[in-house]
């Protein structure tokens, strides 16, 4: 048993460094459902099986065809004529013995007709190359059952993903470029007294050159406050003046030339960001604090909302309008002792704040009749902001409209445009009618060039492997984000254009 655990740690080492042991545990407890094991689906699943997803079930009523084998790494020509779910499960299962693979030889429509609750057991359902009608039926069942639904599609040189989930909360968002939370504009008591323990003027040369820049900025800020009515340097001119003030503090040798004090240079360099006022509450966080789920705490309230409410209590009662201190500081030029002591001041404050939030959680739980065990709750303030990217590029939006139009074509003609060579020309005008009716129905004043209509007929609903693989990689990581609740998933429609190697995300 210990041997298997050790070898799993070795095997998964490179990914454990990204989502940690707790993330891995979530992954290993998950059971995902893939509908349709075409190339897009098997590539996606491969990227879940390799990192050790707990189990998967493929639902597919199709038989393997010659063209299926041609673009799919997980179907062999020996399986032509056999059920596609079974054939794909075999070769996917073989990738990783830690994972358990299952298959159902039925179409999703059959399951929806006879046993829609089949889908309730899954952590996540992924639908690949589904006709619109099936998507809508499935979407509604999964929405009501609170099962996240990821729709994926490769159509010629276009990749498409849509995430359908009522609510997804992320606690560990791992923001890439978060600003530091240093509280220099309003130092908490412990930080204040720590700063006071330094006497820059009275220090020896060695100590002076190894004092952390945070202390230096804090000290000179005190000076500045006394001369500027406790106002932070606001504009470029004032910030430059403040930097000069610090520069004057650099020790000079007997000849009067400034010494090489890198810590002071660091202080000057960091003035611009260090003096940002401690952000009280961003509008995103405000929305969450005023949300219904946050206000009405019941015994059914999920952990995320309990903690959010507790943080809100903290902000209103204990934090003087501020979120709990984050507790981390960047590395900087300093001797070990000074750095560690300063780091501990921030860390201890963060732990203190976290335990106050913890007490609020306990109180909330008690108020709804639940008991809680001891647990630590260190929230990063950035994780409370909701992810919402509106990146609309004309090129990709047109592709989205074309995808909706070919769906319309399929509804009318029970096939996709241009599948056979002889169809390409005649389907162009038919597809154009679908495009126009779509635009009319949604009152969209968009001009879709004929070139795109021709191109989508040319695609013949092909699923070239490289495009399917790109989509499979993208989609798999989004699936992992949903399962591990780490990192922020896309919201909610993604288009990949392999012709220009560009992508866009829309919120629709």
């Amino acid at each position, binding site marked *: 048993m210990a041997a298997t655990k050790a070898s799993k740690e*070795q*095997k998964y*080492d*490179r*990914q454990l*460094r990204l989502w940690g042991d707790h993330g891995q545990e979530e992954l290993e407890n998950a059971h995902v459902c893939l509908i349709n094991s075409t*190339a897009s689906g098997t590539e996606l699943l*491969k990227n879940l099986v*390799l990192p050790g997803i707990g189990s998967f*079930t493929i639902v597919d009523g199709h038989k393997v065809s010659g*063209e299926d*084998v*041609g673009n*799919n790494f997980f179907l*062999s*020509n020996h*399986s032509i004529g056999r059920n596609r779910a079974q054939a794909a*499960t*075999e*070769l996917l299962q073989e*990738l990783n013995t830690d994972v358990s*693979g*299952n298959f*159902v*030889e*039925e179409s999703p429509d059959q399951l929806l007709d*006879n*046993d829609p609750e*089949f889908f309730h057991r899954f952590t996540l359902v992924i639908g690949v190359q589904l006709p619109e009608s099936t998507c809508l039926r499935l979407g509604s069942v999964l929405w009501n059952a609170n099962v996240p639904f990821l729709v994926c599609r490769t159509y010629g040189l276009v990749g498409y993903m849509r995430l359908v989930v009522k609510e997804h909360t992320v606690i560990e968002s*791992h923001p*890439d470029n978060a600003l530091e939370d240093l509280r220099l504009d309003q130092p908490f008591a412990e930080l204040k007294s720590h700063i006071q323990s330094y006497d820059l003027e009275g220090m020896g040369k060695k100590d002076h050159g190894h004092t952390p820049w945070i202390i230096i900025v804090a000290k000179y800020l005190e000076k500045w406050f006394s001369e500027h009515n406790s106002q932070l340097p606001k504009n470029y001119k004032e910030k430059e003046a403040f930097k000069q003030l610090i520069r004057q503090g650099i020790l000079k040798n007997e000849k009067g030339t400034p010494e090489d004090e890198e810590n002071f240079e660091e202080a000057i360099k960091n003035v611009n960001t260090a003096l940002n006022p401690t952000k009280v509450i961003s509008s995103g966080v405000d929305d969450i604090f005023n949300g219904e789920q946050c206000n009405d705490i019941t015994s059914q309230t999920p952990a995320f909302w309990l903690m959010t409410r507790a943080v809100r209590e903290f902000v209103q009662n204990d934090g003087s309008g501020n979120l709990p201190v984050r507790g981390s500081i960047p*590395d900087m030029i*300093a001797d*070990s002792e000074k*750095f*560690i002591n300063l780091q501990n001041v921030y860390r201890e404050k963060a732990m203190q704040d976290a335990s106050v939030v913890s007490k609020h959680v306990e109180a909330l739980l008690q108020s709804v009749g639940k008991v809680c065990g001891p647990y630590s709750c260190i929230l990063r303030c950035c994780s409370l902001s909701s992810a919402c990217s509106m990146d609309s590029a004309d090129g990709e939006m047109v592709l989205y409209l074309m995808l909706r139009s070919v769906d319309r074509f399929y509804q009318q003609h029970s096939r996709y445009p241009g599948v056979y*060579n002889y169809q390409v020309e005649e389907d162009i005008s038919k597809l154009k009618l679908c495009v126009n009716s779509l635009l009319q129905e949604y009152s969209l004043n968009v001009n879709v060039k*004929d*070139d795109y209509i021709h*191109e989508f007929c*040319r*695609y013949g609903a*092909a699923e*070239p*492997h490289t*495009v399917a693989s*790109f989509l499979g*990689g*993208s989609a*798999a990581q989004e699936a992992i984000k949903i399962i591990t609740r780490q*990192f*922020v998933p896309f*919201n909610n429609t*993604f288009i990949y254009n*392999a*012709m*220009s*190697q560009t*992508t866009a*995300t829309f919120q629709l």
Partner: protein
Amino acid sequence: MADTDEPEKKRRRVVELTEKMVVDGGRDGGEWDGRWNHINMFLERPGPFTHPDFEPSTESLQFLLDTCKILVIGAGGLGCELLKDLALSGFRHIHVVDMDTIDVSNLNRQFLFRLKDVGRPKADIAADFINGRIPGCNVVPHFKKIQDFDESFYRQFHIIVCGLDSIIARRWMNGMLLSLLVYEDGVLDPSSIIPLIDGGTEGFKGNARVIFPGMTACIDCTLELYPPQINFPMCTIASMPRLPEHCVEYVRMLLWPKEKPFGDGVGLDADDPEHIQWVYQKSQERAAEFSITGITYRLTQGVVKRIIPAVASTNAVIAAACATEVFKIASSAYIPLNNYMVFNDVDGLYTYTFEAERKENCSACSQVPQDLYFSPSAKLQEVLDYLTENASLQMKSPAITATLEGKNKTLYLQTVASIEQRTRPNLSKSLKELGLLDGQELAVADVTTPQTVLFKLSFTS
């Protein structure tokens, strides 16, 4: 989990895989109906967005299958994906070069390898797997370094695609393809151009780029995009550690050579768990001295081996983008990526596509002799430092030679111990002392390029 407790209904059977089920695809080279349907659309049909050179034809597929030769550099995270992508896009004549053997930590993403393959050469196992799974595909493996081959090897390929984990190797490959270019009367012969598709990944980030050597930005044109690796300052490691990483580096760089824990002359083997265990324990002791917390075995290993986190998904995305470009170029089906795509899926999915520009005085592709400006009293060491530290050059261990009094003289060379010893005194001599003249040409060789780089030395007053 399979519902083994539920009665088996006739309509639906959730079946768990049993060992009896067939796993391998078989080894026949036979074709079957419809095999290439998914790519034929792009080869046989005209379209509004195709490359101006494109001509729809039923023969294009034959070119891909029978004639087109692709070289894949690297059979790791990107390499495995690339081989699969190319094989399923109609390419059959593929060579793959990789000097590494398989490690357990590769298995979370390098899907052509299994536990039983650990220790075997990546190139060999990858080729076997692809050839077995994709009938008719002929991947030829080379368990070698890229530097083991010369122009005659590289010249045979139509397109070269790299999935490397080293900037040095990339630059070398870049230099090799530049050296193959043929100029007639100062005009580049297009048939001597071998397109280079380059992909790189790190955690959730990656990039893919298309290079037409001699025509578009090369690797060295955009060297500043790869900032030099930051190593911790020695004084921090030796006397003022603040982070757990500082403690590990102290043990690796200072304590190990001093204590020689596994015997005289036994260097630290980053792959030996016993060695790592020793470093881990000593790092904890060091950290305790300075009240630093956070040393774990995983962190220790990460610092010693300079581990970069990696997942299957990012490699899949970047390799797929690269393979799409190979297909576009080989078939002329579309205008290729022009010329650099960046990808990041930490927060949603983000890509940025732009045209990297050629650098006018690029040390690799501009054919313009590089300038060096030094005072005649400057020491040779200063020249060496410039060659390694300058952001556009970033050489690793340059060897400097000059023609003095009609003879080729090596001024300094690091890579051969005896020559290094002999030429070391030159480092503290001034350029004037060494007999160098204003306007002198210096030839510099380095691991970052297969050809020597010529510099023109100009004296400043």
